[in-house]
């Protein structure tokens, strides 16, 4: 069973991010401290614009913090790295590549070619149930299918940390449920550390060992709630007393922040 091993995988230390925009400075993150342990599944909820994506981009190495540090395996993050994979809020598929080409993209950059790359690609395409669309172009896929390709592409590159920005946001309920269960399965079987952003509180509780609640601008961590419900979790978990209690509590906290944004 995956879980906290005690070793810190990603350490976020006093991270601040200020954007200079035309309308002056925007403080997106204001002093974030967070330890993500090896093989831990952390989910993040918070009102729109509170800096969730910004934090993810900083961990990914796509954005630099204005101050503070982020380290992975004890090394300070200064740029992107293949040990940290990202599933973006927008699918960001390469439209000129087929499903297979997209999934193989990262493999080729890692020097894995030909048969070997194809085999790995097939495995992950099958995992997200797209084997019948392997040679299709993104324009021929539905939104949910595109998102599944994006997930397969990230998995295939075999990162030890998976950073996911509302990956299931655009999916219908069934696909979403299916992918949630598959994600938990992969996380468990492949020993990955997950940082998962969602605005769906239920999803956050169902997946995460730890739910990070972020507060309205300027983005801070309002509270971190441990979810001790044992895995494997599935749809029945949603009906348990423990789940409902957590849901009510976290919903209340998040709702306060929504109200704060309104003001």
């Amino acid at each position: 069973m995956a879980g906290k091993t005690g070793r810190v995988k990603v350490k976020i230390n006093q991270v601040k991010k200020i954007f200079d925009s035309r309308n002056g400075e925007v403080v997106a993150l204001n002093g974030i401290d967070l330890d993500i342990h090896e093989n831990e599944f952390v989910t993040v909820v918070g009102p729109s614009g509170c800096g969730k994506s910004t934090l993810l981009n900083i961990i990914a190495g796509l954005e630099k913090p204005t101050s503070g540090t982020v380290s992975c395996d004890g090394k300070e993050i200064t740029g992107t790295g293949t040990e940290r994979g990202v599933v973006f809020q927008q699918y960001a598929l390469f439209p000129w590549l087929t499903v297979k080409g997209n999934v193989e993209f990262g493999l080729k950059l890692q020097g894995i070619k030909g048969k070997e790359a194809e085999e790995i690609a097939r495995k992950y395409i099958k995992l997200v149930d797209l084997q019948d669309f392997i040679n299709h172009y993104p324009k021929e896929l539905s939104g949910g299918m595109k998102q599944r390709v994006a997930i397969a592409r990230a998995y295939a590159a075999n990162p030890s940390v998976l950073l996911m920005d509302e990956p299931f946001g655009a999916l219908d309920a069934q696909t979403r449920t299916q992918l949630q269960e598959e994600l938990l399965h992969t996380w468990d079987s492949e020993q990955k550390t997950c940082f998962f952003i969602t605005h769906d509180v239920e999803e956050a509780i169902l997946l995460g060992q730890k739910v990070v609640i972020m507060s309205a601008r300027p983005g801070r961590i309002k509270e971190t709630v441990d979810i001790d419900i044992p895995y494997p979790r599935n749809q029945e978990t949603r009906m348990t007393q423990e789940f409902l209690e957590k849901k009510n509590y976290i919903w209340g906290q998040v709702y306060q922040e929504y109200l704060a944004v309104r003001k």
Partner: protein
Amino acid sequence: MEAHTLVDGTAKKKKVKRNLAERIPNGGWLAISLIAALLFWTILSLIPSTSRSFPNVFLVVESIGTMMQRGVFWKDIGSSLISVTSGFSIGFILSLPVAIVMAWYKPIRFIIEPWIQFIRNIPPLAYVPLVVISAGVGRTPQIIVITIATFLVMSITIYQGIKNIDPTLIKAARVLGAKDRDIFMRVIAPASLPFIITAIRLGTAVGLTSLIAAESTGAQAGLGMRIRALSNTFESSPMLLYIIIIGIIGLIFERLVKLLERRLTGWQEKRDV
């Protein structure tokens, strides 16, 4: 069951009425359009006030023979094609690196772009004399004029295409391990292909429209040069013929670009404009 057929029946009836336009195949429409144009042309050739500019179809077709007899028909077409294709090719080869450099390095963009925009709005005919002063007469100035005109439109088009590439695609490539070189070869290059093809389409069109200007540089032959020469002798039949030939060449270019587009960018989301 009955209700079903009923619905089916009315739907069919409606369809027949609505799709009258679709029942005639595309080839049919082309024929209808051609006949309409010929009719219009014939009317123009009958109206006294326009008949001198629009000699009828038979006279124009006949003038093919006249021009062949004079030994200039194929020479003119060949000469213009050489000028347009070489000018276009040089313009294209120059526009690619310039567009990339403009998209990649801000300072260079700030220095170059305003001037490209500035010169782009000047009709080529205006700077022809300047080209002739330096390059003399003959083939060279023709190619230079077409090169300038096509380069300007293509470099701007390609540059704007590169600039508008979705930045999340570049981020997605980076997190998968792409270095600058990979980003360029595996993201920028394929992503800008549609814009390069648009640039080629605009470039060939501009190449043709600047033909008259290019061939006013003391050319010995050429479609544009011949039209001007014929205008001095008021020979409207061959003039109209040559004008139509320029149009046909344009159509052929367009078709070739379409072919290229379908082969290279079939993956693209269709944006029917």
